[in-house]
């Protein structure tokens, strides 16, 4: 608790510096997340956007130390949670944080719950892990939590099994579990991707509500810019393991800078326009084995690519207030030593 008291209100809740997470392919490690830095303030909702395979899930699993054991590994950088570097925390220390200070909900509500235990057991487990309460108290709390996440018949549901619930209901149960100990940060890894559109909106409303009531920060991972626009404060756009743009939601939607962000926005279907086909981004994210060592990782798919894009690695530079971009089209992104000569 001394750490908490010592933490200044001004310091961000979560600070990530130069995080590198690698996966073992054969005998070598390849980075799926490459030098990512960002921070999340208290009560802030930060959206992380990018297409499949860009490293957004890996990043969130790194923060939770939930990478597949023996395959994925944090290879460098710092993860400061309330000022404490948790990169080197062992399982025991992490178990003190997971579910209590940072909790997580996942994309697949159908498989994320244990099929052979009751909903009640699975919610009370997290309470009993972190709080000094009796089983009966935990059960009463579980019913309250289920009511709070909008589950009808909570008294009965608490004794039912996951297979008796729909996907949306299961995701609500996951949320109830995640907020049980009133964590300071909730990592939501594509929480609505597997759900119907109508249910998606309900779940997002629920998350937003809980965030306001519990004063919790949310790191929302999604590939859906619509979701971002709806509830996020700040957006990070990721591509191939790197952050390519960071801005407040208003700024990003009014003034997207990175060609990748612009293309992502064009790929959103719009009601008012009549188009034969939806815009797409040609090509795929390169496999992590085939990442170019230097240059912009988006260069091979970028419509505005210049010869320099293959030789100079852009850095994330602030181009406007609360707006950073990593693209050589913007002077801020050039490495300092080359900035003068190149332009």
């Amino acid at each position, binding site marked *: 608790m001394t750490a908490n008291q010592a933490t200044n209100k001004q310091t961000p809740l979560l600070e990530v510096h130069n995080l590198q997470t690698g996966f073992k392919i054969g005998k070598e490690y390849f980075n799926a997340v490459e030098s990512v830095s960002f921070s999340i303030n208290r009560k802030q909702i930060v959206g992380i956007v990018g297409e499949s395979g860009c490293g957004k899930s890996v990043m969130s699993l790194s923060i939770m130390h*939930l990478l597949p054991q023996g395959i994925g590994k944090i290879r460098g950088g710092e993860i400061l949670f309330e000022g404490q570097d948790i990169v080197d925390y062992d399982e025991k220390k992490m*178990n003190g944080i997971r*579910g209590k200070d940072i909790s997580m909900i*996942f994309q697949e509500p159908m498989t994320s719950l*244990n099929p*052979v235990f009751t909903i009640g057991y699975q919610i009370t*487990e997290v309470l009993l892990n972190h709080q000094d309460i009796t089983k009966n108290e935990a059960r009463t709390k579980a019913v309250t939590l289920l009511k709070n996440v909008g589950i009808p018949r909570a008294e009965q549901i608490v004794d039912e099994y996951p297979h008796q619930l729909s996907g949306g209901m299961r995701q609500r149960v996951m949320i109830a*579990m995640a907020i049980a100990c009133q964590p300071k940060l909730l990592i939501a890894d594509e929480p609505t991707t597997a759900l119907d559109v109508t249910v998606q909106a309900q779940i997002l409303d629920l998350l937003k509500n809980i965030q306001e009531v519990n004063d919790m920060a949310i790191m929302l991972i999604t590939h859906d810019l619509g979701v971002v626009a709806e509830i996020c404060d700040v957006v990070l756009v990721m591509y191939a393991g790197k952050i390519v743009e960071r801005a407040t939601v208003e700024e990003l939607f009014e003034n997207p800078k990175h060609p990748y962000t612009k293309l992502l926005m064009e790929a959103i279907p719009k009601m008012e326009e009549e188009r034969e086909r939806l815009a797409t981004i040609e090509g795929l994210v390169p496999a992590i084995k085939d990442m170019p060592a230097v240059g912009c990782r988006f260069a091979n798919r970028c419509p505005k690519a210049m010869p320099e894009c293959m030789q100079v690695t852009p850095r994330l530079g602030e181009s406007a207030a609360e707006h950073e971009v990593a693209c050589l089209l913007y002077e801020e992104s050039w490495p300092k030593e080359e900035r003068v000569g190149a332009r």
Partner: protein
Amino acid sequence: MVKYVLRRLLGMIPMLFLVSVVVFFLAKAMPGDSLRGEIDPTNTNPEYIAEMQEKLGYNDPVYVQYWNWVTSFVQGDFGKSTRYKMPVSDLLLEKIPNTVFLALTALIITYILAFAMGMYSGRKPYTIGDNLIAGFNYTGLAIPSFVAGVFAVYFFAFKLHWFPFAGSVDIEVQNGTIDYWMSRIHHVMLPAFILGLFSTASYTQFLRNDLIENSRKDFVRTARAKGTPIGKIYNVHILRNSIIPLVTFLGFDIASLMSGAVITEKIFSYPGIGLLFLDSVNNRDYPTVMAITMMLSALVLVGNLIADILYGVVDPRIRLG
């Protein structure tokens, strides 16, 4: 639930009827009959044999013989053992406790070994310990029990004198005393271990693979995200899921341990159903052979029923209404 069990029990009747037909005619098809056991060996007078054949009903048409046998069988009269000159039911009641004791001990040994080894291998796959366990198990699977049994008797009974080589209890001990039970346990250990070796191997490897598979499931990640210690995740979250397929084995085991005991009991001269069965076949004691075969067939059906009921207990997704 009760309705389900009753329905299943009713469904067994036609099955058992078919089994009884097969058992009876197979027994009839075997060469020779038990006359040589029933008549006075000094009296080989053909007239006497003919008289006895008539008296025992061997000259009746086959379907009459079947009818006589099956009607008395369902009334609990399994006939009279031609060899032991006593009702088969009394004979079975005398031997069944020994075999049940052997089978239960084998099952307990199997469970203790399989869970200890399976949990270790499942948590630490591809380590030296896991490979050693796999080596032990595949050896156990590969060696037939009659070979393993003979070697076990040779080494552990004759060479090392750790265990007795025959019987189910010492003669001198008093029935009911602690010494008596200790002696029985001492006698049953070696045959039970050999009997359980085969299923230990399959249980262990099955449990190991299921633990590995389940440890990669999403719900394990959820449990870790809740701050649940890894030991509890294995012992509660994963194991509870991995028990489900093992229930299938339990159903088989109930019957296979009883019938598997045939060979083991012979090797260890352990006076149970298996030894009785083999002796009865050799002596053409068909009433006993048929009764034991019927009993084992019924056990297979009951074993499957128990497994199906247990599925509902361990897996809420298929719980019966």
